[in-house]
């Protein structure tokens, strides 16, 4: 008997038996198979978050070392070479290994819960994305630990990165590591896009998405298109270094500026990619503590999209000082000034939300609302450097360093810490301590501003960045000392956060499903959520499904307690991209080690490529890794009956399980 190709999902309400059945279907196996094979987006999300925080700590320790070296003039805590590696590794860590992965972690964890689904569109790809991220992080840090970290700034300009000037392994570790990391980012982006388009709750039409989704979605749409630019840039650098090509080397007709173009075509959209999801967090979390929906929901979303679209056209403002033609400078300067408009829209929407709401001052609120202030400061300093003459004055000074830290800490770290206070209860079932939270917030906030507000002056007074020390008598001494003190205060603030997490994990107050009385779907499930997320799949009637009664904006109500059961197998629902009408039952894959095998194969191949210049048999390693990758991919993509990717030639265990499930029901 062949199972039907079509089925009408049964509707129902939750019951203990239903939950037990779903739990049995969805739970991750214990043991090694579960560790390496899990495809649960919640597990993967938490892995992402923990790994990214580890990198934040590593990058932070590097920053403290840098600040000690710069605490006074003519210090020699580090040699210039060591300093180069420390500040470059600090940048690489914070920008590539912390800033985006932490947001991917939150999005991985939250998306299916926000969207009312049971997992991401491609759960195995999700696991693969994490493994590659971890491998790339270890790969690049292996270089640093062996004294071969990046040493040319995070944006790694040629010709200094070329082999003539940089003969060690530093740039090979960095180049190959970045290509490896690019794979992770790209597949993650693809997964987010398809998930947002296809796996939403019934009724969640495109105008009812939580704003958090829009932030991550636009960022990842950009990533899908721009990450290849940086992967290619680093690959060509590696070719120049290892195979004598002449992409960046003027002697053979190459163009050093090609590096800058390829890097910043990626780099500037990336800046938005690491802030837009965080702005989405604020747009989702802040209104909850203002006890009202966000002001200008649609406008904020349009501003998010506009920022990203404009973000593709501003990369040359990183290259104003490279002698490009005036027309080009004017165009990119104009675009960079215009991009402040959609950013301002978001700022005014948040301010209006606070003004028109009844703010409840929690630690999460403090983080979210202070981000607005920091965003304005970072935005204004960015706006200043969008003007070509000002940029010429300020380029390569500490002013730019201050600007980028206001952007990256202000619009990434602050929202992320707010998001931790906001969503930690969902992830763990326990609240973070509010009292310790206040200490954590205020010390972090004061430390950050103490460190970086005076740094604008340091830059205006002409101190160049990326130099390991400075002479006495330039008027920079006390400013640098203040920054160093501030950086340590900031570090204490962050330490308190980790203390809070460690303590609250064990003894935090029990949260319950919805401690903040928040409106979005993730708060309708238990904390922490069960492996299947939703026992019955909700149907959504508005952007704030849990606030509909009190808002009274419409007659229809979301259906939270009654919906599709989809309990006869590992299944979820696919809906249409615009209207959110159910149009397909998704067969979700079981846990699988294929992603881990594939990731291991790719990593082995990259290690071989790294070693090939010193050890000829390394080519064998490359081939071995490629073969392992092929095996992993075949395991992964081989059409499976239980996923209905091929016709059933015969019955397998998966089918029997499905049938018995149906019989029980």
């Amino acid at each position, binding site marked *: 008997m062949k199972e039907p190709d079509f089925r*009408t999902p049964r509707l129902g309400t939750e019951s203990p038996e239903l939950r037990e059945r779903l739990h049995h279907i969805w739970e991750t196996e214990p043991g090694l198979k579960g560790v390496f094979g899990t495809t649960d987006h919640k597990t993967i999300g938490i892995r992402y978050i923990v790994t990214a925080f580890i990198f934040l700590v590593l990058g932070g320790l590097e920053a403290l070392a840098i600040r000690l070296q710069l605490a006074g003039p003519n210090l020699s805590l580090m040699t210039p070479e060591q300093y180069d590696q420390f500040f470059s590794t600090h940048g690489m860590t914070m920008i590539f290994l912390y800033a985006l992965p932490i947001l991917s972690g939150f999005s991985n964890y939250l998306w299916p819960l926000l969207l009312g689904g049971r997992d991401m*569109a491609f759960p195995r790809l999700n696991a693969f994305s994490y493994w590659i991220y971890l491998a790339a992080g270890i790969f690049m840090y292996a270089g640093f630990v062996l004294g071969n970290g990046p040493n040319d700034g995070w944006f790694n300009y040629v010709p200094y990165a070329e082999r003539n000037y940089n003969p060690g392994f530093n740039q090979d570790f960095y180049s190959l590591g970045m290509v490896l990391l690019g794979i992770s980012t790209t597949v993650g*982006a693809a997964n987010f896009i398809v998930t947002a388009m296809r796996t939403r709750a019934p009724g969640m039409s495109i105008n009812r998405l939580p704003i958090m989704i829009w932030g991550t979605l636009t960022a990842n749409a950009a990533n899908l298109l721009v990450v290849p630019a940086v*992967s290619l840039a680093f690959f060509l650098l590696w070719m120049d270094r290892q195979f004598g090509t002449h992409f960046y080397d003027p002697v053979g007709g190459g163009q050093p500026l090609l590096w800058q173009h390829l890097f910043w075509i990626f780099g500037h959209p990336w800046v938005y990619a690491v802030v837009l999801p965080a702005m989405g967090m604020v747009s989702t979390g802040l209104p909850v503590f203002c006890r009202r929906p966000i002001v200008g929901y649609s406008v904020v979303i349009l501003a998010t999209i506009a920022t990203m679209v404009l973000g593709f056209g501003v990369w040359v403002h990183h290259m104003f000082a490279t002698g490009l033609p005036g027309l080009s400078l004017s165009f990119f300067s104009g675009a960079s000034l215009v991009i402040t408009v959609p950013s301002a829209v978001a700022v005014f929407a948040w301010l209006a939300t606070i003004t028109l709401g009844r703010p409840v001052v929690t630690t999460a609120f403090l983080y979210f609302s202070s981000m607005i202030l920091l965003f304005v400061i970072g935005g204004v300093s960015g706006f200043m450097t969008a003007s070509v003459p000002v940029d010429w004055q300020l380029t390569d000074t500490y002013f730019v360093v201050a600007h980028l830290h206001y952007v990256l800490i202000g619009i990434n770290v602050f929202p992320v810490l707010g998001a931790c206070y906001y969503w930690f209860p969902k992830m763990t079932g326990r609240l973070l301590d509010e009292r310790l939270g206040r200490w954590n917030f205020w010390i972090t906030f004061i430390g950050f501003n103490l460190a970086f507000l005076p740094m604008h002056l340091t830059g205006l007074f002409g101190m160049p960045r990326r130099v390991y020390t400075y002479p006495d008598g330039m008027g920079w001494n006390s400013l640098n000392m203040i920054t160093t003190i501030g950086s340590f205060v900031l570090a204490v603030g962050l330490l308190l956060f980790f203390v809070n997490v460690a303590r609250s994990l064990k003894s935090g107050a029990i949260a319950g499903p919805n401690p903040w009385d928040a409106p979005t779907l993730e708060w309708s499930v238990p904390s922490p959520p069960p492996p299947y997320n939703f026992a019955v799949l909700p149907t959504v*009637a508005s952007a704030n499904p849990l606030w509909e009664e009190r808002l009274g904006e419409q007659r229809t109500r979301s259906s939270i307690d009654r919906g599709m059961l989809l309990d006869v197998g590992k299944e979820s629902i696919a809906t249409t991209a615009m209207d959110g009408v159910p149009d397909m039952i*998704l067969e979700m894959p079981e846990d699988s080690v294929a992603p881990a095998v594939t990731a291991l194969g790719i990593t082995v191949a990259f290690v071989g490529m790294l070693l090939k210049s010193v050890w000829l048999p390394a080519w064998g390693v490359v081939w071995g890794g490629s073969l392992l990758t092929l095996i992993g991919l075949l395991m992964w993509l081989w059409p499976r009956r239980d996923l209905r990717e091929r016709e059933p030639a015969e019955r397998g265990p998966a089918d029997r399980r499905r049938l018995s499930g149906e019989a029980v029901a």
Partner: protein
Amino acid sequence: MNETAATAADLRDTALAQPANLPVGPIGRHGVGYWGAWTLIATEAALFAYLLFSYYYLGASGPPGWLLEPHPTLKLALPDTILLVASSFVASFGEHGVLHRRRGQALVGFGGAFVMGVVFAAVQVLEWKSKTFRLGDSSYASIYYVTTGFHMAHVVVGLVVLLALFVWTALDYFSPRRRLSVSAGVLYWHFVDVVWLFVFTTYYITPYLGFAR
């Protein structure tokens, strides 16, 4: 737990989705996997766009004489291009075999496209050998070999995909309904062929049109 029939009106009035008879898993090319294939193609297309950007940038800013072959010969490249484009139609012929339950046609299609792809790759190797310049000779030589090399890597991946489709068809895995792998795989092969047209135009046609001369 009652089974309920679905109507669009119910959805509007009660906000409880009461879905119709829905496909279970991918039917035809209707499935998330097909969207996944498109995202892969989007990012790969971007990669080639950056490669060609690099070519045009290097060419536009290069000194006179940057083109090592101002009149690249089309003797091998043009027939090879025609062969590759033709293989797209052959792969599509194979897909239609699956669509109409003609397994023999499907095997001929995937097998034929695979053989044509192998011939394309072999001719491309001959083309490389016939060049008077090597990878490290100049920025033109570097970008020429790296772009065509990237394309070659994509051909190899496409060949593995065609081979897999051939084997899976031989194992009688697919039907007109359950064939997402076929449609996604053939789509990828189309991409490999279409992107070659851009590479070919850039490296073999634009010099005749005067770029970087």
